[in-house]
């Protein structure tokens, strides 16, 4: 089976600092692999174990520094790494990102059987890029995948976690799946894996390499734009502090004293 694993490098949003002008201080902001993509990688590794002759290409779109993240992923045992990197891609929204990634896959890996994405990225949290790629490649998509149940060359059986329950579904390949949080233990790179990875190169492709019209990507190719960004406003309340438990406990009655 031929798999494309899509991953994103994201800023660690749990550690954001603000400048005096209420903009995010990007300097020194730690970059990490998007958490959902780690789960997606585990599903790819599981398929690689269960289906012989499976190859996995890890693909990312972002600045050159994302190459480091791809190198780390290669050390887990993935076969190839591709980084789509070009100033022309900058400021792409989910539509333009879907368009760019789908074009790269169609041009460079047209014989894929499966595309695996994380369900959402912690920076944008739109969960739209996966379905957008599926749309442009005209693929069936399965979102909210929690577990792989079974796989063979032609189909996958998956468990989805939805609001009200778990849905077991089967899809024919080729298809695209989006993986959400699951209980797979993250694989650690072995020394052998790290040595193997040093022999491999991250292939960097630009807009021209994938045969994409520059007008279809980046800010130009994005139907949406941010008209303003501002720091989230806080509710205007003055917290009343208590030291005595008995007095504090009186505030826990949601009937608000109507019955007193």
């Amino acid at each position, binding site marked *: 089976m031929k798999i494309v694993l899509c991953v994103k490098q994201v800023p660690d949003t749990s550690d954001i600092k603000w400048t005096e002008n209420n903009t995010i201080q990007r300097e020194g902001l730690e970059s990490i692999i998007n958490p959902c993509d780690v789960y997606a990688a585990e599903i790819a590794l599981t398929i690689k174990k269960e289906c012989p002759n499976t190859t996995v290409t890890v693909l990312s779109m972002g600045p050159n520094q994302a190459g480091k993240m791809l190198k780390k992923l290669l050390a887990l045992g993935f076969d190839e790494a591709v980084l789509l990197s070009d100033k022309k891609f900058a400021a792409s929204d989910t539509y333009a990102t879907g368009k760019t990634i789908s074009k790269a896959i169609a041009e460079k890996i047209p014989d894929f059987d499966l595309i695996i994405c994380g369900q959402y990225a912690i920076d944008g949290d739109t969960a739209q890029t996966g379905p957008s790629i599926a749309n442009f490649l005209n693929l069936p998509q399965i979102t909210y995948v929690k577990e792989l149940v079974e796989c063979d060359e032609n189909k996958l059986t998956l468990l989805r976690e939805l609001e*009200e329950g778990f849905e077991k*579904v089967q899809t024919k390949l080729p298809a695209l799946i989006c993986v959400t949080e699951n209980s797979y233990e993250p694989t650690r790179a072995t020394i052998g894996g790290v040595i193997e990875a040093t022999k491999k190169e991250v292939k960097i492709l630009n807009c021209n390499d994938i045969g994409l019209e520059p007008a279809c990507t980046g800010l130009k190719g994005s139907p949406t734009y941010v008209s303003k960004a501002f720091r989230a406003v806080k509710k205007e309340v003055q917290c009343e502090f208590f030291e005595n438990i008995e007095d504090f406990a009186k505030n826990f009655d949601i009937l608000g004293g109507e019955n007193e």
Partner: protein
Amino acid sequence: MSKGILIYSEVTRENYLHTVTFELANKARELAQKLSDCPIMALVLVKPDLIDEFKEVFRVNGFDKVFYVADERFRTYTTDIFAPVAIKCVRDIDPEIMLIGATNQGRDLAPRISSALHTGLTADCTGLDINESGKLAATRPTFGGQLMATILSKKFPQMATVRPKVFKPMKEFVNVDTNFVRMGYDFCGYKSKIEVLEFTKKITSEINNLDCAEVIVAGGRGMQSAEGFKLLKELADTLGGVVGASRLAVEMGLADKNCQVGQTGKTVIPKLYIACGISGALQHTVGMNNAERVIAINKDRNAPIFEIADYGMVGDAFEIIPKLIQSIKQHT
């Protein structure tokens, strides 16, 4: 005349119209006042035997026009059956704005529609408005909830998804003369590539009904252990509420993902929200800051949670909660 606001109406597994449909309809009314002569419309893909009972529901919720496609294939949602039909309908209806509930189904379907129509989609909006140029201004939290962004679309329809409970439905039912339009779709013998084999409903404790809870006792990293969450459960039981958790608590394995409140979890509007050992990062607070009353217990007096709390106590939750439970029990 405006081409109208279209709302995708999701039919749930239990065969009712998802409540987010009516929350969006109410918000759409407000937006429509800023656009001239703007009809509120719905699109529903439904099994043929359900449409008659839905008609009344659409009427009393004030929809001007309802487009529906009735087919047995809409029994269970799969993307490859629903998306092509929805795309064709939206193209034919050609609305100015399209709103979709950010449920699992909505988040799966909406980006298929927007990508196919080459238009923009703003996810999980917490604010919708019409700007001075008559465009949809969709505001949403981003960067882990720390930054708000207002997003506009250059293309039409201008699309947005909104989570359940972010907007409120109409207070009172109305009675309008809804125009129902049946739309046809030819599947041309297409068979779904996706087959739903089995569905297992979560047991009630797994669902942990955050959506309808009046009281939520939530814990964060400060609750440290499963022991700490037992304490929260005890307090929740005393108050007739349920347990919630911050993202960090879920990531640390202290609580189940179903309990998670916040940007990557659920949005809740309980009467009372009790935050224990939660620092109050915006990622968390965007999911609960509409609670009627917020009470916080935290060791750190400078924790941001106190900035949005109505009442607070500084100290160790492990010491405070047992005493609280005792005190509450004595007074009821």
